[in-house]
Structure formats: C-alpha cells, structure tokens
C-alpha cells in the first residue's frame, strides 16, 4: 500500500477523488431536490464543445470546458428566469449541439487527440498536478459559496414561492446555484468523465437519502459515500486495470443496491 501511495499519479488521483466527493456531496442534494439532474447532464455534455475548441486553439482543455459550461449555465439560468416552459427542449438541444461542436473541432485539429477518451470516460489515474490545483481552486469557490449562501439555497430548494414572499433574492440565488453546478461539473469531469458526471451527482445522494431524512446529514453522508466510491473505484481501476470512471460508478450502483436491499430486509424483519 505504501508503494502505490508514493506514486505521484496515485496521490493526484486520491486528492481528486476526495475533492470530487466533497463537491458532489455539497451540490448533489441541491441538484436532486431542485430536480436539476437533467440540466446537469446537459451542462456536462456541453463541456465537450469547449474541449474541442480548446484542442483546436492549443490551450488547456479545462479552460475551454469551463468557459463553455459557464456560458451554457448562464443561458439556462436566464431562460428559467423568464419562465420559459420549453426548458427541457433547450437542455436537449444544448446537450447535442455541445457534443457536435466538440466533434467538429477535434476533427479540425491536426494530429491525434490523446486525452479525448479520458475526458469522455474519465481517468482519475492520469490527473496531473496542475489539474489538482485547478480542481482545488474550483472546490474552494463552490464550497465557500454554498456554505455562505446555504440557508438561501435551502429556502429555494424547499419552497421557492415562500422564499419570494419573504423577499429573498430568489432570481440571483437560482442563477448562483446554476453557476455553482457548472463549476462542480468541471471538477467531476476529471474524476469520472463527461458521460458519467450525472451518476456522481445522484448516486451518493440516493445512498445518503436511504440513510437519513435530515438535509444537513444527507450532505455529509453524500460526501462520505462519494469518498468511498472514488477510492474503491480507484483501487479497482489500478489493480484490475479497468477504466476508473466506470469502476467508480459501478461500485456506486452496487452500494446503492446493497443499502436499499438491506433496508428492505430490516423493515421486513421488524414487521413480519
């Protein structure tokens, strides 16, 4: 164990896994209770467009992805503010157009884009030290904003109209949550890839919700659950030489199934 911890790539992977878990545990419960899961899927896929353009321009792919996801988040936030009903239509279009832009620009880029699969499916074992620092910055932004505005975000997740009646800045809080979701997605892409980001935003929350009915505790349990998933997926990936993103998600699915099954068995035993 000591030997694998001494590899820098392993340290980077573990740090990224823990930071991703903190992020998904903090923002995931808000995304789930506010029914923003589909929005998150759309945002994560638009990142691909940013990646493609970044490759073409020869800049760091994360910069392109961050810019694209942020723009998409602001557009979606504006749409929601104007109470347009065709929100899901727009999300679907954003989702597909984002991917299409990515494909076109990667095609235009001369040579081979080696990290492409990494971004689609994620490879936590190839995360660089620079990526770790970028992720750390994003985590600090997201975590401090979420904690500072915590009661405001809870208010709009619980009862948006009541929050408006109490004169909360609901429009700004909603836009803020959208932007924090975008930044979180960037962080999570490192660990599990564009295609699997949704899983990391939902599975830990689903497991935590089986264990507690207290929102604060669900946040905490989601972080814990995320860490368990990321680290065990990472080990499986390392020893069995399987893709890390998929390993993390499959461990998550297994854990959720086990928790649900155990809970059902317990209930049955209590009331035969």
């Amino acid at each position, binding site marked *: 164990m000591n030997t694998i911890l001494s590899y820098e790539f392993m340290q980077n992977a573990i740090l990224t896994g823990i930071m991703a878990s903190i992020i998904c545990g903090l923002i995931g419960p808000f995304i789930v209770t506010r029914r923003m899961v589909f929005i998150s899927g759309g945002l994560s896929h638009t990142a691909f467009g940013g990646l493609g353009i970044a490759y073409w321009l020869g800049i760091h792919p994360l910069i392109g992805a961050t810019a694209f996801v942020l723009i998409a988040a602001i557009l979606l936030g504006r749409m929601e503010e104007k109470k347009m009903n065709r929100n899901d239509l727009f999300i679907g279009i954003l989702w597909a157009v984002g991917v299409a832009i990515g494909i076109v620009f990667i095609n235009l880029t001369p040579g081979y884009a080696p990290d492409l699969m990494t971004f689609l499916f994620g490879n936590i074992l190839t995360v660089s030290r620079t990526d770790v620092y970028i992720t750390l910055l994003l985590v600090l932004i997201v975590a401090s904003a979420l904690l500072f*505005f915590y*009661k405001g975000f809870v208010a709009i997740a*619980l009862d948006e109209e009541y929050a408006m009646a*109490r004169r*909360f800045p609901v429009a700004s809080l909603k836009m803020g949550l959208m932007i924090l979701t975008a930044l979180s997605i960037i962080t999570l892409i490192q660990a599990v890839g564009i295609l699997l980001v949704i899983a990391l935003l939902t599975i830990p929350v689903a497991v935590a*919700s089986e264990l507690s*009915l*207290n929102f604060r505790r669900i946040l905490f349990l989601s972080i814990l659950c995320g860490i368990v998933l990321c680290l065990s997926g990472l080990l499986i990936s390392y020893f069995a030489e399987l893709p890390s993103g998929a390993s993390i998600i499959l461990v998550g699915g297994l854990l959720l199934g086990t928790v649900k099954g155990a809970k059902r068995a317990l209930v049955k035993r209590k009331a035969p």
Partner: protein
Amino acid sequence: MEIEPDAREGSPLEPLIAIEHVTYGYEDRPVIEDVSLDIVREDFILVIGPNGGGKTTLLKAILGIVAPWSGQIRFHGDIGGRLGYVPQFTHFNRNFPISVFDMVLTGCLNATNYLRRHAPEHFEKTGAILEKLDIYGLQRENITDLSGGQLQRVLIARALVSDPLVLFLDEPTTAMDATSQTGLLDLLAGLQTEMSIVVVTHDPTPYAQAYRHIACLNSRLYYHGRGELDSLTLERVYGCPVEILGHGIPHTLLSGHGETEKRP
C-alpha cells in the same frame, strides 16, 4: 373599503394593504383583471371563486411572488415584510428532507437575515409557536411523514413565527377532516385579534361565522361586506347556481344586494 377622512393611526379602518386595479396573467391571457381590494386591521377576508378564477394568483401578486402587469399594491409602513403565507401543499417540495422544527425555523428567515446564523430568539419563538399550535411533540418528525392536517399546522406555524400582520391562507381546509377543520377555525378565531386574515377557498362553508368581508373572484372581483352576498352574485361568479349553507346561520348569509356588489 372607504377610509374615513379622520381615520387615525392604528384605527381598524386604516388599510394595511391597498390593492389597486391589479391585472396579471400567464402568457398573454389575464387571470385577474382590474382587481381592487383593501385589507384593513383585524380584517377577515374570504376570497371565494371557481377553480381557475385567479384566487391563488391574487395571493401571489399581493405577496410579491409575481409582478402585476398593471396596477399597484401599496403597503402601509413596513408591513411589506410582515406577511404570513400558508401555501397549498402542491406549491412546495413536500419531499424535501427536513424536520418539523427546522421547517418552522425557516419562517424566521428573510432577505436581511438569511446569511447570518439564526438568532437565539428564533429557536425560542419556533418552540413557542409549535407549542401554541399543539405540534410540539412532532418537532422531530420529517415533513414527508405528516398527515394533511399536521402539515397544515406546520405551514401555519412557519407563517406565524415571523409575527405577521396579515396572514394569507390558500385553501387551508382542503386536506382536512372535520376535526382538524374545527381546530383550524378555533385557531384562526384566536389569531384574529393579533392580525388580519385572508383565506382563499372554493368552499366558504366552514368560515360562514368567522369572516367579515367576502370577495368573489372570477377574473374580476366582486366585493362584499358581511351580509351583502346573495346567490345571484355567486351565480354570476361561478357561472352556475350556487347555494351557500352556513353553520348556525343558514340563510342570513344570503341577504339581498343592491348597487354595492361591485367595488371600485
């Protein structure tokens, strides 16, 4: 509601909220049109009307949840921040994982204090309100596990914990059995000395003895004092013959109306 020229500060006739010619709708279809209404101190206004007549929309306009297309809503002094709102169950996220105590505690928050820690008196007030509404024993329960009547009390507690001057309730008796209804009416009767109450409902029967003014809303507003309402007006509002049966006062509720039925 006319204001006496010599109405003094604090007089029961002083309007706390003046709704003036408010029009609002969704897409391009107006839901409420040219609605004017005064809410005075210690008032008990019953807003009745058919489904889709704009009752909830009117509440949302008063509470600032939607901005009227035209007209205005004027608040007396700082009362704009002291409105209590008890929404319908379908209007909030009933699956949100939160305990009764924490739910009521959120009622203490507003735009100016939500970034700070809860003040100690928030916790004291929440406990006191739970006690007052006989739901202290439920404080650790999750809101998803409550019955309709219990959840209604929690929502009322959340509205009361901020010391409102006007309390708005949207269809409060819909999910209640007869016992809970009686309990709610007793509770409202007790609150009436401390605040004005506005109840929106499609079924005015339970409130026949409690209300002071009644407003019939079907896109436009037909406003009445007590004893001015008759079945003809109701028929116009609902679009079909309607009978009101009040407990104890079966037909005095339905006295004749003259030219006063529509208020400016």
